[in-house]
């Protein structure tokens, strides 16, 4: 038996002083089979890309000069700034509401639980468009907004609703509350994915409930929360364009205003698309690093490289 020694080796400890087999080694070589289909696919993809590049360069309909003229024009840049501002605020509101509602839904208190379920039911169940317009027209229901004792009691302070609710606050409230309902479910799913033993071990060490949540459960839940939240963030970036219905000058609305005047529809849509692509790309990179942070401890151990 020529291999008897090697079989014995495998069962026992790792042999010392053995080199990785060189080209002349007796150990059989293993190679991949040729993949002809892959070469066909490479050619097909190359032709497709070439056609797209040809069109982009030669089709006069794209009107690149107009694209570049508007790309960094003041109204477009203001629109970009507004889109970023609204997205960030909406997501912050959404995440904060999401955490609170998710914790309420997971608590054993029946009242908190019912309130959380009611919140998610309502804000997930009505169209965002309706919610936006509702907030924008809040003055029709409540001409005065203030703080005081309800049912006719004294008021501490009061302001007219038309002053309190601008198109920005309407967009922020409408999108933020709606996002909170979705984030609550994402966060709840993440919290449920953490093994109950982790909570028990944390409790057994004497951690208080909030410490258990913040130090043990949430960091592990983030592994499941970050990818769908990235989705939500990117979705929201584009979804803010719905705020144009309450006359908010975000990116899409700014671009619309321009092409309604100049009729250069195609190049201005390209301007908007390029800006959205740039912002989404930045977010995707951020998401990659956040995911990597929360995967700490979960990656396979780095194996020493055997092959040169």
């Amino acid at each position: 038996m020529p291999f008897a020694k090697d079989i014995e080796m495998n069962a026992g400890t790792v042999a010392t002083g053995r080199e990785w087999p060189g080209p002349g080694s007796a150990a059989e070589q293993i190679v991949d089979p040729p993949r002809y289909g892959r070469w066909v696919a490479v050619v097909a993809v190359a032709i497709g890309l070439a056609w797209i590049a040809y069109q982009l360069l030669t089709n006069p309909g794209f009107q690149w000069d107009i694209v570049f003229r508007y790309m960094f024009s003041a109204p477009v840049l203001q629109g970009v700034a507004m889109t970023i501002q609204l997205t960030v605020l909406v997501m912050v509101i959404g995440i904060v509401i999401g955490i609170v509602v998710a914790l309420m839904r997971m608590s054993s208190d029946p009242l908190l639980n019912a309130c959380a379920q009611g919140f998610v039911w309502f804000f997930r169940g009505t169209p965002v468009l309706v919610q936006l317009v509702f907030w924008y027209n809040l003055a029709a229901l409540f001409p005065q907004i203030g703080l005081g004792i309800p049912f006719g009691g004294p008021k501490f302070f009061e302001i007219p609703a038309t002053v309190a609710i601008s198109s920005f606050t309407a967009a922020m409230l409408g999108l933020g509350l709606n996002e909170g309902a979705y984030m609550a479910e994402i966060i709840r799913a993440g919290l449920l994915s953490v093994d109950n033993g982790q909570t028990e071990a944390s409790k057994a060490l004497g951690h208080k409930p909030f410490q258990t949540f913040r130090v043990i459960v949430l960091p592990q839940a983030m592994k499941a929360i970050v990818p769908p939240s990235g989705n939500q963030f990117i979705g929201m970036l584009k979804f803010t364009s719905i705020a144009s219905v309450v006359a908010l000058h975000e990116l899409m609305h700014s671009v619309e205003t321009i092409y309604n005047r100049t009729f250069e529809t195609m190049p201005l849509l390209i301007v908007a698309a390029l800006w959205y692509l740039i912002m989404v790309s930045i977010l995707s990179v951020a998401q990659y690093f956040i995911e990597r942070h929360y995967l700490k401890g979960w990656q396979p151990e780095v194996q020493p490289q055997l092959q040169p």
Partner: protein
Amino acid sequence: MTAHVQGIASMTEPSDADPREAGAPLVRIANVWKKRGHNVVLKGIDLDVHEGKVVCLLGPSGAGKSTLLRCINAIELPDRGMIYVDGVSIGCRQDGERFVRLPERDVAAQRAEIGMVFQNFNLFPHMSVLQNIIDAPMRVRGESRAVATERAHDLLARVGLKEKANAYPRHLSGGQQQRIAIARALAMQPKLMLFDEPTSALDPHLTDEVLDVMKGLAAGGMTMIVVTHEIQFARNVADIAAVMADGVIIECGAAREVLTRPQDPRTRRFLAKSLQDDA
């Protein structure tokens, strides 16, 4: 169903050398009842554990051993009866004749005094071994990082894993993880250690490295309550063996006595079956 047998630790090894023997028990479990749904899992358990003693809870699965253990640090709460550790009623405060449940924040302070080791280790996978050990001493006890880290390194040396401080739990074997879990519990300098089937999730050849650490702890005078199926360990290390069946302690006494000359026929059957499985 059966008359409960009172577990009296002091009837074992009446040594005059230990002055604490005469004093109050460190753990007093007094007439503890627990229901889960319609199923009564603990039916009036009484057990005293004196300081420095090792108690093994044995018995078939579903007997209520783990539930009893989890009641001792209020991971679960009994429905009736009371558990005292070092004279403190666990999970409750006394209000005249009755007991009122404490808020979680106050229970946390009680739990900090009691170490627990789980069947599935339950190390925190997002923290390195060192972080796992120093987190609670720093966060709960308010120790400085330097003090906590120094003790962590001592404990790691004690469980034979000095070089694993910066590893992540996922990259360790089950036996190593369980030894880290023991070190993590010890880092809080508990009065009492609870072990919930610490070797049940381990390969036979990894079981011994964990049992060795536990033997060392017992020899060092740590009070331990161990739920286990390791009859051999119970016989060699435990002072007291309490055998449970159907939510009742059916037999309790000096470990060597109970495990070599069991009185109750159910204990005999259980032991015969366990030893058969081991062989």
